[in-house]
């Protein structure tokens, strides 16, 4: 018979008190586990979500807002940048420095799932988690010509019950979160496979169709129109390829007198002016929320300078999502984690003191039992060790219970966490730091078990035996 068994039997004898003290320890440990795992998963998810492209180019303003909005679909919509700024990355001055530039337009939703207008390259050229190609569970990607084609993320498909062939109408969302208009219906062409990224919870529509909605274009300032008319003048090869694509687009903004005046002044030809106006409206009044940029790895120097060049200009800012997330995690989330961890550790210590009180209070009832063991030949040290073992068993038992509770809690809350934040949390997500709990609990148990162990050590055998005769 081992001393562990002796300690275990003592625990069994005081089953209720032991269970309650172990449970209180379990709650503390569950809290520690929950904090550790949730932070770790949040951190990983944030870092993973920001992989697959090097830069996000968006409107000047908060970097974190831009990243949270464009990568994680969180927070209020940010301001937009002109569509032609996006074109700087595809056919303009930044073209040589980038491998891919994917425009996205935010601000729409369908049944709670964010709707993102983008281009087919989103799934052809970008890789999620930095290395995996997007694959489809059903159907496939939409094409450029399929203006009202859409692709639905794995989780969004589950949530909205959209499947290939279904049509839906994205609803525009105002900054205050209310629906402000409805668009033309889009048709689901494909359902993405699970990626473990925020994209799982989103629906992606063809940007061409998005821009066909009059609400998604807005008049430019007269000065800008003048610039645009210059760019779109006949003979300018930069834009001619896109004209045909715009013919189907609804005409909007032609009733803007200031625009007409600018056009007339520029060309002097009402007919030509009308054509230019139409073209300018369809091509250049468009805006995008952000551009996801993959830099050209073969030209690292150009890529390195790209962010600097963009940020030096007045039109937009370029942020490195990985760095922004890293700063965010260390400065904000890291401090919250530390604070929660301190509270959780305090709960564990309080639970440890509970174990000490429980064992110490049991000493008066157990003096006789201890005296009997001493009379049978148990040394003071053996008695002390048995009490310490009892404390360790209670703490570790509570610890194991806490780990199970903590992970159970995480598992139970994971759907809600995913719904609310897009962060995937699994009940089986273990963190190596949890292993520290074992030696930590043993040290705590030894510390809190010391006082009752000393009380047991000092038991007067003869007196305790005589008292019960």
């Amino acid at each position, binding site marked *: 018979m081992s001393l562990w068994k*002796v300690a275990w*039997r003592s625990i069994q004898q005081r089953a209720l008190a032991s269970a309650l003290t172990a449970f209180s320890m379990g709650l503390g440990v569950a809290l520690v586990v929950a904090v550790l795992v949730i932070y770790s998963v949040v951190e990983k998810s944030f870092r993973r979500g920001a992989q697959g492209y090097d830069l996000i180019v968006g409107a000047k303003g908060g970097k974190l807002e831009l990243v949270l909005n464009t990568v994680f679909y969180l927070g209020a919509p940010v301001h937009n940048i002109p569509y032609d700024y996006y074109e700087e990355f595809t056919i303009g001055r930044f073209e040589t420095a980038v491998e891919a530039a994917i425009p996205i337009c935010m601000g729409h939703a369908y049944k709670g799932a964010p709707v993102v207008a983008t281009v087919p390259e989103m799934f052809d050229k970008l890789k999620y988690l930095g290395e995996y190609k997007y694959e489809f569970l059903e159907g496939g990607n939409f094409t450029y010509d399929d203006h009202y084609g859409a692709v639905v993320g794995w989780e969004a498909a589950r949530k909205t019950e959209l499947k290939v062939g279904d049509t839906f109408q994205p609803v525009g969302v105002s900054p205050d979160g209310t629906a402000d208009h409805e668009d033309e219906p889009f048709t689901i062409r494909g359902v993405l496979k699970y990626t473990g990224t925020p994209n799982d919870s989103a629906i992606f529509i063809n940007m061409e169709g998005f821009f066909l909605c009059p609400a998604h274009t807005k008049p430019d300032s007269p000065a800008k129109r003048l610039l645009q008319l210059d760019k779109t003048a006949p003979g300018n090869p930069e834009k001619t390829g896109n004209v045909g694509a715009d013919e189907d687009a609804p005409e909007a903004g032609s009733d803007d007198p200031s625009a007409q005046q600018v056009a007339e002044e520029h060309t002097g030809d009402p007919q030509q002016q009308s054509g230019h106006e139409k073209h300018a409206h369809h091509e250049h009044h468009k805006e995008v929320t952000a551009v996801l940029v993959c830099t050209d790895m073969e030209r690292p120097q150009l890529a390195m300078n790209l962010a600097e060049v963009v940020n030096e200009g007045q039109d937009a800012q370029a942020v490195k999502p990985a760095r922004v997330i890293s700063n965010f995690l260390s400065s904000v989330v890291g401090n919250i984690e530390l604070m929660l961890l301190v509270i959780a550790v305090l709960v564990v210590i309080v639970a440890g003191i509970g174990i000490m009180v429980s064992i110490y209070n049991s000493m008066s009832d157990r003096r006789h039992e201890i005296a009997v063991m001493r009379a049978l030949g148990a040394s003071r040290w053996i008695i002390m060790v048995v009490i310490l073992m009892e404390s360790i068993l209670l703490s570790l038992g509570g610890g194991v219970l806490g780990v199970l509770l903590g992970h159970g809690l995480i598992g139970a809350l994971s759907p809600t966490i995913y719904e609310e934040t897009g962060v995937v949390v699994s009940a089986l997500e273990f963190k190596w730091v949890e292993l520290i709990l074992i030696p930590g609990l043993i040290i705590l148990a030894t510390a809190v078990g010391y006082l009752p162990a000393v009380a047991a050590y000092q038991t007067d055998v003869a007196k305790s035996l005589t008292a019960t005769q």
Partner: protein
Amino acid sequence: MLELINVKKSYPEPDGSVLPILNIPEFEVAAGEEMALVGRSGCGKSTLLHTIAGISRPDSGNVRVDDWEITLMSESECDRFRAQRIGYVFQTFNLLSGFTALENVLLAMRFTGRRPNRDRARHLLERVGLGERMTHRPPMMSVGEQQRVAVARALANQPKLVLADEPTANIDTGHQQQVLDLLRESCREENVALIVVSHTPQVAEQFDRIDNLEEFNRVRAKK
């Protein structure tokens, strides 16, 4: 086998004075001998047993058990010696209620520092008629059965001496003789010296040697 020479023991009183309990010039028990130790309540019988077992240290004098001078041993040596050489049967059985009958016997073996001999523990319990109740815990057993477990436990480590402090005091008359017979037979089989403390004349009369503590304890003789 057991020899006490000039053993004195006293306890401090709350007023600072000292209350003498034992003053025994000489006391001997031979190997395998059985004897009854009698005397009025409070005359120091339990203190004497505690002193022999090394649970209490005498203020002076020598206590030799099986040629080992236990007054010269350290406390831990004394604990180990007690576990290996002395069996103890208590008036209130003092079985550990959280343990089964078998575990109570095995626990006594554990404190010798040697690996518990499960076969011997089973054999002893069968010997006292509890072969079918080894996995039962004390609260599930009758008082007679509990005292039989206590007898088996006292013999677990093949001791040289068994000290029984009022072993039949809490047992109904019908079972008293049964337990006493069992204790004596078991000690005979194992050639163990037995000292039974009792203030029941019917119990003491069964032994060839009956010592009255009040007669050889000089503290009491003076009173």
